[in-house]
């Protein structure tokens, strides 16, 4: 069948240059951004930034943001926003902390419970948006405050007045699931590499980098899974269709409402994932966890090529968007610049990304 279609070449169609084809990919902007930021720091920053430990230094915050950003990007492609993901991190963190510390549940129970709990909150968010027909911006803005407030109140109840719940590290000590969500992976491999002299090591022979932080592995895995779902499954097509025009999609038989509620649940689960990883890493949870992360995640998604109007974007783009983010936040500490330039930089990146995306979209759709 493919042969028939290909054999009929149209003489009026020129071969598209590789560059033009690349231009049509939504993640191009973010990729270009990574290159630009890398060049910028290669010139201005201390060379330590691009050693293995330097790279892992900026990839760790990138990963924590990236997991959120990928969820946010999928939801944005589906045509909705979730401003409550930052608060959701705190709320899921509280729930996870209570499971582990107060109730003393093992991780094999607490982790699924936390995901179910987060998915439930996401479903409430989504159902309100769908049922009321209100913009998700307003509904989730309300949940930004509701969840943040509940996290505060809940922490005080759980701890008897404090806004920080400690003791997670002791509670998970020796749990067989703990290495999957905290600490470093492949430490044996890194030790071996250090012995062979392939990576830097301290004088005593132990490697400077003891392993790959697990969040980076999760981050890459989630980006790959999200990309596969978006580009190679029916559900992915439904997500694009729902965001592109939910009326047209539902007339074509796409279960638009289910898709949207499911996306809200996925986004909340991404927040829960970040909560679990960071709570286990620091050994405590507090009410300010995830503060402002909703905006950073949306910025990373937009830098990654997501349109604010939905129906266009990519998970790989959000991946690179958050890499840019991590590079800028951490990279400035390797330079002589005042770190507070970070916010200026971020705002400028966002503006450039939006202008760029707008131009790209017009190219793709042939809008005039």
């Amino acid at each position, binding site marked *: 069948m493919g042969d028939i279609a290909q054999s009929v070449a149209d003489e009026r169609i020129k071969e598209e240059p590789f560059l033009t084809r690349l231009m049509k990919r939504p993640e191009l902007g973010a990729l270009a951004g990574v290159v630009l930021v890398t060049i910028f720091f290669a010139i201005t920053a201390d060379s330590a930034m691009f050693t293995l430990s330097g790279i892992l230094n900026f990839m760790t915050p990138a990963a924590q943001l990236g997991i959120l950003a990928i969820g946010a990007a999928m939801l944005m492609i589906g045509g909705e926003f979730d401003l409550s993901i930052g608060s959701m991190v705190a709320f899921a963190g509280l729930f996870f902390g209570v499971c582990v510390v107060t109730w003393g549940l093992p991780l094999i129970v607490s982790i699924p419970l936390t995901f179910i709990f987060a998915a439930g909150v996401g479903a409430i968010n989504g159902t309100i948006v769908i049922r009321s027909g209100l913009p998700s911006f307003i509904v989730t803005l309300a949940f930004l405050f509701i969840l943040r407030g509940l996290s505060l109140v809940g922490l005080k109840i759980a701890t008897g007045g404090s806004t920080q719940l400690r003791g997670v590290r002791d509670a998970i000590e020796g749990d067989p699931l703990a290495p999957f969500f905290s600490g470093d992976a492949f430490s044996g491999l890194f030790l071996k590499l250090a012995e062979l002299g392939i990576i830097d090591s301290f004088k005593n022979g132990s490697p400077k980098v003891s392993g790959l932080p697990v969040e980076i592995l999760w981050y890459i895995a989630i980006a790959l899974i999200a990309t596969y779902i978006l*580009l190679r499954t029916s559900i992915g097509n439904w997500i694009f269709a729902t965001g592109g025009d939910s009326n047209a999609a539902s007339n074509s038989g796409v279960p638009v409402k289910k898709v949207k509620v499911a996306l809200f649940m996925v986004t909340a689960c991404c927040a829960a994932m970040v909560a679990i990883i960071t709570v286990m890493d620091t050994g405590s949870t507090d009410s300010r966890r995830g503060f402002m992360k909703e905006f950073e995640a949306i910025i990373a998604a937009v830098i990654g090529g997501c349109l604010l109007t939905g*129906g266009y974007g990519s998970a790989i783009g959000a991946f690179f968007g958050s890499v840019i983010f991590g590079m800028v936040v951490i990279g400035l500490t390797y330079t002589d610049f005042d770190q507070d330039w970070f916010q200026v930089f971020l705002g400028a990146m966002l503006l450039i990304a939006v202008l760029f995306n707008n131009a790209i979209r017009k190219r793709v759709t042939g809008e005039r």
Partner: protein
Amino acid sequence: MSDQSVKPIVEMKNIEKHFGNIIALAGVSFNINPGECHCLLGDNGAGKSTFIKTMSGVHKPTKGEIFFEGKPMSFNSPRDSMEAGIATVFQDLAMIPLMSVTRNFFMGREPTKGKGIFKRFDIDFANSVCMEEMRKMGINLRGPDQAVGTLSGGERQTVAIARAVYFGAKVLILDEPTSALGVRQTSNVLATIDKVRNQGIGVVFISHNVRHALAVGDRFTVLNRGKTLGTAQRGEITPEELQDMMAGGQQLASLEGSLGGTV
């Protein structure tokens, strides 16, 4: 009336539809035979869109019966009617400009391969089917990943029709497919309707343009204020008579004098 030996695919009897205290349809009867183009004509607000929405499962009729291939049917959603073989090409075309032609073509009905969690969208198959079907309709795409936004109005209409035909539509409902098109694109769409009809599909062509309807129609039903004013065979009725029925009679006759019959 129509040929008794041919059984209609869809028959709708005395359909009524009320929205609160508004009676949008007050008893409409309509049927569609295989391989014919049945034009549904009516002025704005006559109830054409409401009527086809009951046919395609968007609205449930308040009263009346729907028979599909002789059996009584009730559609709860557009999906139900689609599965039965009634495809609707809405005025807004149900097309998403930002998405590629292939993704639009298979939207909601993606071909898959693999099993279990490896069940995935078979993009290569989808691309080749899409290119082939579009070529049959006389449109050479730049590539299957060309965005629908870059197509002209007539081409988009053709994508929507080709999609419906590919998915085994027995009845194709076209809601004012020519209302926003230029002359050339209109004739392309009318030619597509003819191709589709020759494949034995029943086409319901909704229009308020008498000339477009007469160009391809086999039968003509006129709606006015939520009621059928009657059905006529091709050749039994003149454009002027159709025009008058649509407008509800006299006023237009006097207007037409001053406009020189150009409406």
